[in-house]
């Protein structure tokens, strides 16, 4: 079975502008593979094709791509899910600068992540030398928040992040922000909320839920953002 691909190509050293390159791959009838496997086989034909990948099992978050118009991880997206639409269109994650082909510069994404201080702050008490215990109920609050692998599929599918990537934290950063806001061991809740209480950081989210629709780990950043908004409101009213 011949599978056709249209792949975004751009080498800034050579190309004046990005272009879509048509490629094809022979996939044995009755078999299936992930988009990442197909890309690796395409790279064997043309070694200049560039993309990021590492764990190849949906854990590291390196191979976030825009596949047939929807962001997702190439390593856990089967070709069989995409064949009904004919040609498979593969582009880099939208909104961030392209370094080369499918590789994007994620600096803006990480800058926003850094802003929310993604680590425990325990200013008013020393963390114990051994385990820092939580009750099962307290620990349960972190479920659905800590699993984020920072693949950037959500933030790069969010129009608010496209328009204001230097001011809006974005769904990935805000999911992590709520993960620390709700952590019973963290003592900087007030300081964290103060840093989010402007017109852009949180409130540029208008709840269109693109982030929820694309998250490869099935997480719900919109819900976490709603919780942050509630915390900010409770503090203000």
């Amino acid at each position, binding site marked *: 079975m011949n599978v056709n691909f249209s792949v975004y190509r751009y080498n800034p050293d050579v190309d004046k502008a990005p272009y879509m390159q048509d490629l094809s791959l022979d996939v044995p009838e009755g078999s299936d593979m992930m988009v990442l496997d197909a890309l690796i086989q395409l790279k064997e034909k043309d070694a200049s094709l560039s993309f990021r990948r590492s764990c190849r099992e949906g854990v590291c978050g390196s191979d976030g791509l825009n596949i047939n118009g929807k962001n997702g991880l190439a390593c856990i997206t089967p070709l069989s899910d995409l064949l009904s639409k004919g040609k498979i269109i593969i582009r880099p994650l939208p909104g961030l600068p392209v370094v080369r082909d499918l590789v994007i510069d994620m600096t803006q994404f990480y800058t926003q992540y850094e802003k929310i201080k993604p680590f425990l702050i325990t200013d008013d008490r020393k963390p114990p030398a051994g385990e820092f215990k939580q009750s099962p109920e307290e620990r349960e609050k972190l479920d659905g928040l800590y699993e984020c692998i920072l693949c950037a599929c959500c933030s790069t599918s969010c129009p608010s992040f496209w*328009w204001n990537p230097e*001011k809006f934290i974005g769904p990935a950063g805000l999911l992590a922000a709520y993960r620390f806001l709700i952590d019973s061991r963290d003592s900087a809740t007030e300081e964290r909320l103060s*840093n989010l*209480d402007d*017109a*852009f950081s949180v*409130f540029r989210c208008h709840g269109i839920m693109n982030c929820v629709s694309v998250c490869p780990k099935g997480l719900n950043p919109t819900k976490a953002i709603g919780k942050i908004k509630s915390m900010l*409101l409770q503090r203000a009213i």
Partner: protein
Amino acid sequence: MVKVAGTFGRSGVHDYILLRASALILLAYTLYLVGFIAGTDITYATWTGFFSLTTTKVFTLFALIAMLVHAWIGLWQVLTDYVKCTKLRGALQFLLTSVAFIYVLSGFVILWGV
């Protein structure tokens, strides 16, 4: 924290509350107007009578002020999303917010005469 001077509210939360509060007022006013239009034969006399009621006058002005707040914040949000040139954004915001102000003042003058 991102500091902004172009919007109406003092913070993100303030904007958020004002947008929703003003939207509720506009919804209530719309229902009030629709209720009148649906339940009455519209003639010059009934229309003038309706707008000479103190309730209608106060409610109309209240809704116009809510419109000003709602438009100020909403348009600032849209402009900061889509217009990246600061000079152009500033000019557009000045123009559009001025129009909203003019609506409020016009409403005041018009209601004064009914």
